[in-house]
């Protein structure tokens, strides 16, 4: 379970998170939506222990990702970065099997390669891509590789940062379907941040709407279109008229 209580985060005079509260139950897929610059990525960085909140509490399966036990919980976490964040200097299979080659779960290289190829096949990539480098792949393929890396060590929690950004609608839907399948198949707890409404409808069990540094609305996917929250209604309609300003 992921439990975020009363998290504040500022960068200088810029108060980005102003008391965020969020709960994601085991095996559920939570999608956090919101306009640009509202702090979605900052929440994700706090959840991963990459940025320390000024105050408040974050627990991932009972462990604070900013504590000394950070590595224990991170070994059970997978992350799909917005741009893939694949290591340019390593071939695809070494990217996927990175934890098996360098982490505490270290195994021999041929075993690691076998696992990497299995994971690549699971996300729809052929074995022949294993020895390519990330720069030789298209954006959609890089996302698949990043997804394979995120699921490589059977994580308990997966985070997805804008998984469909920069992809054409068909490839975006392929990635959405893959994410949904993997979340159900692996039974993981998932948190996704996105602007993409199609992604929300494909991936989410629950949705949280972040605006002005606080969660303005949370609910199940089927409640999303029925909400009376004025911010959420404007965001879902993609309208320029409403309480959400357009100058950001």
């Amino acid at each position, binding site marked *: 379970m992921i439990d975020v209580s009363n998290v504040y985060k500022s960068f200088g005079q810029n108060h980005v998170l102003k008391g965020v509260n969020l709960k994601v139950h085991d095996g559920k897929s939570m999608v956090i939506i919101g306009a640009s610059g509202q702090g979605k990525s900052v929440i994700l*960085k706090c959840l*991963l*222990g*990459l940025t320390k909140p000024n105050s408040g509490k974050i627990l991932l399966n009972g462990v604070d990702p900013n504590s000394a036990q950070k*590595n224990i919980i*991170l*070994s059970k*976490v997978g*992350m799909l*970065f*917005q*741009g893939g*964040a*694949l*290591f*340019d200097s390593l071939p695809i299979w070494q990217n996927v099997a*990175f*934890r098996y080659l*360098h*982490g*505490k779960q270290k195994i021999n290289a041929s075993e690691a390669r076998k696992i990497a190829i299995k994971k690549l096949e699971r996300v729809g990539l052929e074995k022949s891509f294993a020895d390519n480098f990330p720069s030789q792949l298209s954006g959609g393929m890089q996302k698949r590789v990043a997804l394979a*890396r995120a699921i490589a060590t059977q994580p308990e929690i997966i985070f997805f940062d804008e998984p469909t950004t920069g992809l054409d609608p068909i490839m975006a839907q392929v990635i959405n379907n893959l994410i949904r399948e993997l979340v159900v198949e692996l039974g993981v707890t998932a948190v996704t941040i996105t602007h993409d409404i199609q992604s929300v409808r494909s991936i989410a069990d629950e949705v949280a709407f972040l605006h002005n540094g606080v969660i303005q609305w949370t609910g199940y996917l089927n409640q999303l279109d029925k909400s009376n929250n004025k911010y959420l209604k404007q965001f879902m309609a993609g309208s320029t008229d409403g309480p959400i300003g357009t100058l950001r």
Partner: protein
Amino acid sequence: MIGLTAQTGRIFLTFCSFIGELIIFCVRVFANILTPPFYMRAFFSSLIHIGWLSLPVVGITAFFTGGALALQIYAGGARFNAEEVVPSIVAIGMVRELGPVLGGLMVAARVASSIAAEIGTMKVTEQIDALSTLSTDPIKYLVVPRLIAAFLTVPLLVGVGDSIGILGGYVVGVTQLEFNNTIYLINSINYLELWDILSGLVKGAVFGCIIALMGCFFGMRCEKGARGVGQATKSAVVSASVLILAANYFLTEAFFTS
């Protein structure tokens, strides 16, 4: 007046914060050197990148520097009939000063820039964050192997550069200045002391640390965008070069003034 004071104060505080950041970075790096895990593949790759691939640039620089030095000393020595000091001054000048300093500066230009650009690009494309989420300490994986490789290979490069520089002086001395080749070689070696050579190698090790630390430090604090990577690269090369020259003065003072 108040504006000027405020501006000065701001610059001073920014400088202090930068120095503090650098010290914390160095402490983190040195604290990680002796504790596992050790990334041997990254270390050997750094050895090749920093050492082997820098050989041509260091060798060519040293060769022409040795040759130019021979010509200058000959021209200067001729004013008071001391042309015969050319071989020994070229040898001493190369191993004590020019070999380490020019070698260090050339490696700084080649390696500090490439380390800063590589790590800076990794930072802006979230690869450093990805390392952290994969339970891998970026300092251990990216900085420590480069630091150790630079510490070991820059002295070797300095040693090779010294030899090639002396060879450059020999070629010019024998072909253009009409020195006898045997006498030139004997005079080059006879006046050299072991400490002359060792001091240059120690300087090389210190310069290697400076190059790797500056490249990694500016890469790690790189800001977003192409401009950020460019700025990190420039800062790494400039600071490494300035620190090499400053360190060279203090090391020379420590080694040779007592």
